[in-house]
């Protein structure tokens, strides 16, 4: 039974698991959570970063140009760029 668990406790449950991190500037990270702190600074192992660039089309509205960068070994992510943290998104 979760007894007054704070968000940080819920993140703690994901240690050594793969997580999805949404970051500012249309960046998303999938990686293994190795460490975090109260600022949401994160150490992510085996990370894949996706940067989604938007091309603005006057007629239809927004359009996507998607680009993926990959950083594998070990990545420190500064807490002030993190928007949200979640278990990996599964289709369905």
């Amino acid at each position, binding site marked *: 039974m979760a007894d007054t668990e704070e968000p*940080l406790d819920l993140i703690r449950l994901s*240690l050594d698991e793969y997580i999805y991190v949404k970051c500012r500037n249309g960046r998303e990270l999938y990686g293994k959570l*190795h460490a975090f702190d109260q600022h949401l600074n994160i150490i992510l*192992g085996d990370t894949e970063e996706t940067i989604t660039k938007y091309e603005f089309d006057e007629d239809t509205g927004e359009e996507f140009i998607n680009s993926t960068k990959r950083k*594998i*070994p070990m990545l420190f*992510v500064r807490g002030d760029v993190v928007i949200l943290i979640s278990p990996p998104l599964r289709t369905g």
Partner: protein
Amino acid sequence: LFFSFFKSLIGKEVIVELKNDLEIKGTLHSVDQFLNIKLNNITVIDEEKYPHLMAVSNCFVRGSVVRYVQVPAEFTDLELLHDSSRIEARQQKKV
């Protein structure tokens, strides 16, 4: 937690990616409590993004402009990181 993490990496080569998309590879010389970083022997990644600072071999980077720091996986003690994170989270809860 992360202050001691970076202290354990002093002397290793890291790549710092800044919020303005600059990527700087260098040897970690020192770090402080704000995670400000001093790098020695810097080289650039991707010439197009980089405003030429050819005269510079050492630099000080303010912690707040860092987006990511890429560190070598072989120098990170995962068990220690996991345990330290659990302790940090518990300490924050008590505060």
